[in-house]
């Protein structure tokens, strides 16, 4: 089997006394789509932020394309991030900028297109996520939740990254819009030939966008397998999570 695109080993992170990641081991295959499942607050977003270099882990290694990212120089780290796209959990669109500038932000920052050409380029990318070119002149606060997700998706793919992260792309959307966004994600990832990592706690969504799946619980990966097998994995924890049952090995920590 070829070398994984992203390899996590023993990733640990605490915030003050609170242990969030407790030795995460995970391999993400190049050109495949991995979904990470887990309850709220289980450290899924923190894992992604560690891979992106936004949070420094307390321990453990992150390798991308076989290189330990901790050893990268600032310039190399920046060059690596240039090839990664990210859809944030709450969109994180820049509300002081119109949609077209949001979408082309990375291309403009990298000086890959001129400002004059950015509007047309934004219209192309917006079309790929099913939005009209006229949306480009609106501001993020003027958009519905579903449209904001699409714009966030457009911004993540505009610079044609080869790794894309999606943090809960369908949370807060109605089921039909969720399915539409899932479809867009699958299309975009396939067109770019990218490696994708998605966070979700929606089983239908996980089966639609994932090739592989992993489940995180109490700061560790407790299961990995094929996304298609979710629901009948034979792993009591994953099956409980997939079916949304109250009784099982996972006990909700209601306090602390």
């Amino acid at each position, binding site marked *: 089997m070829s070398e994984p695109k992203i390899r996590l080993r023993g990733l640990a992170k605490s915030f003050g006394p609170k242990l969030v990641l407790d030795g995460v081991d995970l391999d993400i295959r190049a050109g495949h789509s991995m979904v990470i499942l887990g309850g709220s607050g289980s450290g899924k977003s923190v894992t992604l932020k560690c891979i*992106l270099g936004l949070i420094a882990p307390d321990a453990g290694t992150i390798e991308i394309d076989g290189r330990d990212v901790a050893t990268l120089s600032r310039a190399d780290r920046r060059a690596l991030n240039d090839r990664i796209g990210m859809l944030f959990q709450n969109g994180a669109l820049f509300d002081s900028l119109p949609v077209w500038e949001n979408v082309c932000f990375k291309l403009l920052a990298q000086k890959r297109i001129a400002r004059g050409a950015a509007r047309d380029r934004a219209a192309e990318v917006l079309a790929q996520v099913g939005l009209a070119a006229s949306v480009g002149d609106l501001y993020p606060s003027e958009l519905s939740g579903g449209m904001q997700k699409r714009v966030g998706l457009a911004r993540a793919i505009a610079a044609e990254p080869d790794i894309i992260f999606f943090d809960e792309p369908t949370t807060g959307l109605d089921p039909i819009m969720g399915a539409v966004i899932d479809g867009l994600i699958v299309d975009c990832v396939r067109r770019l030939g990218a490696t994708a990592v998605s966070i979700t706690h929606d089983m239908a969504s996980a089966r639609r966008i994932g090739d592989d799946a992993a489940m995180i619980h109490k700061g560790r990966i407790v299961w990995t397998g094929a996304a298609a097998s979710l629901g009948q994995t034979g792993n009591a924890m994953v099956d409980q999570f997939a079916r949304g049952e109250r009784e099982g090995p996972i006990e909700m920590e209601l306090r602390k």
Partner: protein
Amino acid sequence: MRTPRRLDRVLDLTAALGRGVIAMLRGIGGVALFAAEALSHVVRPPFHGRLFLRAFVEIAWFSLPVVALTAVFTGMVLALQSYTGFARFNAEGAVANVVVLSITRELGPVLAGLMVAGRIGAAFAAEIGTMRVTDQIDALHTLSTDPVKYLVTPRILAGTLALPLLVVVADILGVMGGWLIGTQQLGFASGAYLKATFDFLQPWDVISGLIKAAAFGFIVTLMGCWCGYTSGGGAQGVGRATTAAVVASSILILAVDYVLTALMFSR
């Protein structure tokens, strides 16, 4: 039994004090590093000229009404106060000098600085703080953009350059306020009042005030950006950051004003 317990209490107190001091030193160190990083981007391309202009207009142009009103009233009050006060030892003639020196050396820069702290320091802290808690600053990282270079450097540069400009206006309007009261109410002849104003005024009086203004502009924008950049804890955190920015920059303005005055005027 008794002595150890008392010792314990003393040690507890010392530890608490030590923690406080360490936290303060860490804060000062953090701000200093942040300022150094922001300044290093002034000479490292790419430059965000558009953002600098936007910040400059926001600070200089939109603070103009507030600063102008403050300056006019301060000049008027100064004239009245010094006239009635100095009448006690027959020194009413010094009104024009007192007004112009107080305004250019001291009150112009300090009051403009405090006004801008309230307007701009708070606005920057709220804007950048909101970007922090909604992951927009993290998003900048993933979009090939250094957040300090993009958000902080243009604002600090704009503040440092805009405040002297505002203070030039404040100086002129402050003197005008004094002249207005002097000629309309206190019975000075217009020509004599202006002559008294400019006869004793030296370039250094104005220049020292402009140097102070630049320092205050730097402080206000730096603290606004820092408090926003390090804010956390949702909407409440942003509220705290905004308050902290205004309080910290106001106190720093007054403290730095003393230091600069001592440096520039004590011989």
